[in-house]
């Protein structure tokens, strides 16, 4: 981006479109919708909280590798869960 563009562009609408479209296509292809992802996230947070101290705000879950036809590759559920402290269990 050049000097002149710095005055004109403030976050491009194309990048917004790309991000939104990426999410939409993943959901279309896997038949998984945002609400369902929220439910899944809540359950994951609940399960992990028994073992570790985590902040639900920090948890990220998404589906990667969603292709149109199910026989070429499998979608992956990717969860990023930062742990603050492990709980002492079974001691």
């Amino acid at each position, binding site marked *: 981006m050049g000097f002149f*563009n710095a005055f004109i562009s403030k976050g*491009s609408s*194309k990048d917004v479109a*790309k991000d939104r479209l990426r999410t939409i*296509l993943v959901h279309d292809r896997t038949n998984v919708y945002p609400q369902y992802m929220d439910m899944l996230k809540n359950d994951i947070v609940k399960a992990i909280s028994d073992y570790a101290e985590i902040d639900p705000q920090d948890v990220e879950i998404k589906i990667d590798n969603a292709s*149109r*036809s199910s026989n070429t590759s499998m979608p992956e559920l990717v969860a990023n869960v930062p742990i603050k402290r492990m709980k002492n269990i079974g001691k």
Partner: protein
Amino acid sequence: MGTVYVVTSGKGGVGKTTATANIGTGLALAGNKVALLDADIGLRNLDVVMGLENRIVYDIVDVVRGECRLRQALIKDKRFDSLFLLPAAQTKDKTAVKPEQMQKLCNELKEEFDFIIVDCPAGIEQGFKNAISGADRAIVVTTPEMSAVRDADRIIGLLEANDLRDAYLIINRIRMDMVKRNDMLSIDDMLDFLAVTLLGVVPDDEKIVISTNRGEPAVTDDKSMAGKAYKNITRRLLGEDVPFMDLSVDDGFFGKLKRLFGMGAK
């Protein structure tokens, strides 16, 4: 033995009928025997884009019902002797032709024509399923809009599920000035999402409106950018290796100034 291409998109209004008319005319222009088949029953329009609306006597439904012979229903084009149109019925609905009937019809046409181009209705319901059932390969048309790309993705999935793999993609109505400003999805963005073979890129061109007004496909107009793009598309369908057109825009005084100072975005 001819090849049947179905032109489809999912979303309406992206330019399927215009693409069908231009590809068919382009193939005829190159000396091939071509039949255009309007499968958008109830909403026929290919006849209008081709400028043949006053010549319709019989239509596709008459043919499959045996009310006339195929030869009687085929309308010869005004300009090209090797180009024919089988119009859709306007009074019936999208279920008037069954998939088996469409297959039989396409097979019959393949005996006589080099190329059969089927104009598919918008949507993913029965009309779509009927239209694709005789096809050997699909050409998916999209525009650089989120909704059109989303629907194209859906359609490509449905085509694959119906054994129509390796669909070709036409990106229609691109505006390189907007792509350059980062306000429109680029060709590469769309190919990343859709992961299919690019058949051509057609620039947004007001000459398309003018040529449709006249009932003369833009591919016959050497001055039209969109027409040139369609000519390239037909050459690629004929197996030629044609480089993609340079659609970059003249960015005027400031662009030149920026380039002069080495600040151009390229």
